């Protein structure tokens, strides 16, 4: 049975996920997204994966959320508060969400994973570090190259001079 900590974290995560999409101001929306990502880090702690949880906090809550906040603040104010969506599309989206939840939920509840139980001790995170530097070291190098190329690509895209740059006037 789920304990109180799990229930609290799941309510916080899902509630702030809905808030991130539905709050009118996108600044508060990005803060709510930050809470969602921190809640997922809390789930990782509950799953005995402290290394992944700390990585999640430092990467998502620390850098990605700040990046999103800065981008939101670069956008004109009336666009931050502007909500543009078709009401019919919205109802269709809510229907799609409920269909996905019920469909995948019934499949999962009907499957056999309910009887899975854990009796083994948690994986020591030192083993993950060892794996990273031995077996997965080529993948680690490739991941570093991907990150570097993504950052360089983002910088060159955002610094392009040939797109019109007149938002300072308004």
């Amino acid at each position, binding site marked *: 049975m789920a304990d109180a900590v799990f229930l609290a974290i799941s309510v916080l995560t899902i509630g702030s996920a809905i808030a991130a999409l539905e709050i009118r101001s*996108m600044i508060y929306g990005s803060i709510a997204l930050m809470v969602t990502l921190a809640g997922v880090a809390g789930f*990782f*702690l509950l799953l005995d994966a402290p290394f992944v949880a700390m*990585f999640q906090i430092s990467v998502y809550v620390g850098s990605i959320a700040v990046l999103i906040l800065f981008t939101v603040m670069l956008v004109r104010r009336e666009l931050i508060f502007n909500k*543009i969506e078709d009401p019919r599309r919205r109802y269709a989206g809510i229907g799609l969400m409920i269909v996905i939840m019920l469909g995948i939920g019934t499949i*999962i509840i009907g499957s056999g*994973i309910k009887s899975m139980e854990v009796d083994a001790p948690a994986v020591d995170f030192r083993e993950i570090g060892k794996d990273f530097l031995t077996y*997965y070291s080529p993948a680690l190098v490739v991941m570093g190259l991907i990150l570097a190329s993504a950052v360089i690509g983002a910088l060159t895209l955002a610094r392009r001079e040939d797109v019109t740059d007149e938002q300072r006037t308004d």
Partner: protein
Amino acid sequence: MLQMSNELIEFVLVSVALLAIGIYGLAVKRNAIRMLFAIEMIVNAANLNIVAFSRFIPNSQGQTLALFSIAIAAAEVAVGLALIIVAYRMYKNIDIADFRSLKG
């Protein structure tokens, strides 16, 4: 570490809920930054699923995969935000229905 009193299915159901909310956002919202929020939620649902299954099997490869996935998602968000900034400078808007210069 912590006493394990939660079952796998609870984590998987939370992950399904996050996935469904993310798909809803991706389908309904026309604001490019909010669509990026929705993508982040879907990626996080996948990571949560991976780590939950790797705890219950149990092995360590799942956590390694989740770490790689988080790093790649960070790169994806950086490029996505740069694209949004470029599009905002060109169109003065972040409504994706206005980004139509690729339309034939």
